[in-house]
């Protein structure tokens, strides 16, 4: 119940944050702009709309996850609002989970709004919609959950600016990890071992990217999809667990 109260308060805080609306408006504009861009291309415009649409949802969702996520905890510490929460019968991990859950609710609502924007554009342009689109959207949301947990982990021990830089770096590297494995395969045993270690330690965010599948009408089986969701959930749980341990030990000076 305490976690839920903190989550709802965080959600309310997010709703009253102007940054969120700015990002949302930009995302919707980007999705809408695919109609204009479509006129500049010859054929393949279905692919263009889907590509730009899903890309925008992913990009702006990640921006929200990072820029709202990094403030979740560090802002509470900087502004000392955390003093009144931690001195109440609330365990520190409950505070963290509440903050995390709150932003997850915000991101869910945002993803739904952006997805509705995309569906509207697809409908207006009479582009057929299949189940893969919803699977891709679901995995985009799972990626947001992982990124939010990364941002939360960093914000438990460093400043908002550094958290933003680290999380952005993690996002970029996370999409490049498959290259690490390919690169490692060409190296000697030791280097390959190290690169493989890094590959497994960092989140493999490319796993959540089904944009290509949607655009090229490729199927992903239910079992595969479930496996990717479980991977995302496990990775998120590990991040939240590490964040709780760090947060439990720190002094609020």
């Amino acid at each position, binding site marked *: 119940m305490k976690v839920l109260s903190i989550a709802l308060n965080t959600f*309310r*805080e997010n709703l009253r944050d102007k940054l969120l609306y700015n990002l949302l408006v930009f995302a919707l504009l980007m999705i809408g702009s695919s109609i204009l861009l479509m006129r500049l291309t010859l054929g393949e415009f279905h692919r263009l709309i889907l590509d730009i649409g899903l890309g925008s949802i992913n990009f702006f969702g990640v921006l929200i996850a990072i820029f709202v996520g990094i403030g979740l905890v560090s802002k509470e510490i900087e502004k000392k*609002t955390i003093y*009144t929460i931690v001195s*109440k*019968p*609330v365990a520190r991990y409950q505070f963290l989970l509440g903050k995390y859950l709150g932003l997850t609710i915000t991101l869910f609502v945002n993803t739904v709004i952006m997805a509705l924007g995309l569906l509207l554009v697809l409908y207006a342009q009479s582009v057929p919609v299949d189940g893969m689109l919803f699977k891709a959207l679901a995995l985009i949301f799972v990626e947001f959950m992982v990124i939010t947990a990364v941002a939360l982990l960093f914000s438990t021990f460093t400043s908002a600016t550094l958290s933003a830089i680290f999380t952005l770096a993690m996002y970029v590297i996370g999409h490049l990890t498959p290259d690490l494995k390919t690169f490692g395969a060409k190296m000697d045993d030791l280097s390959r071992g190290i690169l493989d270690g890094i590959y497994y330690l960092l989140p493999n965010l490319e796993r959540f990217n089904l944009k290509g599948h949607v655009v090229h009408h490729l199927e992903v089986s239910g079992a595969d999809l479930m496996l990717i969701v479980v991977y995302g959930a496990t990775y998120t749980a590990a991040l939240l667990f590490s964040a709780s341990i760090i947060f439990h030990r720190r*002094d*609020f*000076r």
Partner: protein
Amino acid sequence: MTQNSDLVVQTEQLSKVFRVGFWGKRVTAVDGLNLEVRPGEVFGFLGPNGAGKTTTLKMLMGLIYPTTGHARLFGRDLGGPETKARLGFLPESPYFYDYLTSREFLGFYGHLFGLWGAVLDKRVDELLELVGMAHAKDLQLRKFSKGMLQRVGIAQALINDPELVVLDEPMSGLDPIGRKEVRDLILRLKESGKTVLFSSHILHDAEVLCDRVAMILKGRLVACGRVTDLLDQGVSHQVELVVDRLTREGLDHLRPLTDKVVMQGDRMLVVLKSQQQVGGALEIIRAAKASLVSLTPQKGSLEDLFIREVKGHRSQSEHHA
């Protein structure tokens, strides 16, 4: 540690060392502090800025962990939910969720104590009434003045009807009316049987409000006890006289009894060494046919004691250096 479960707050050799800067330089914020706060008393925790007051209170509230030593609240170790449920805390210069209205704000804290629905609504209304903020219950906190924020801050500390209320610098930054309101509120809390522990560097407030005080300097306890006892300690009980038209001869007689004489035309200010000199001085004034304008016994104040302690501490450190 000798445990006394009757005590509301008990610390023994409580210390906190921070590591600051790139090289992790050790800075001792609190050094072997022994404190005891008894049930139902208003306890003032005094000291200049940077003395370690806030650090101590934060340790008691579970916001930072002690480096060494022990502290107990209500006879229990710090940090447990049962202990926290009996506490109310107002941090120094609090900044709250300013996107909330006072009603939402207090409602949120109520939820953390498991208060919901009609019970919570009633409690919130009572508290807003108590701190004189009933008129602003639907106003967002961002529109509040500092005094108003302090008052809803106190209301949030009382949401769970706590046995111990801890206030960190509750009067700082407030205008005289705001300070008086906070003072009245503290007295009302005492009347309703609560224990109040507050830190302050405004000594006058402590003198008026506290049953007992502790004075801390550079993390160390320098004085602790009942306010009246501390004020009697080492204070010389001087008496100040204002006399008109005292002759030179009269003044010569009076001088051995005085510490200081200040002339201002016909009028002079005479500070007698102690109360014992009053009889003799009055005789001399009467004999010299001068007129006595006023006679004021000088009462020691916490401020005198405080300044004495700070000076003593400084000269001690210079001596060591």
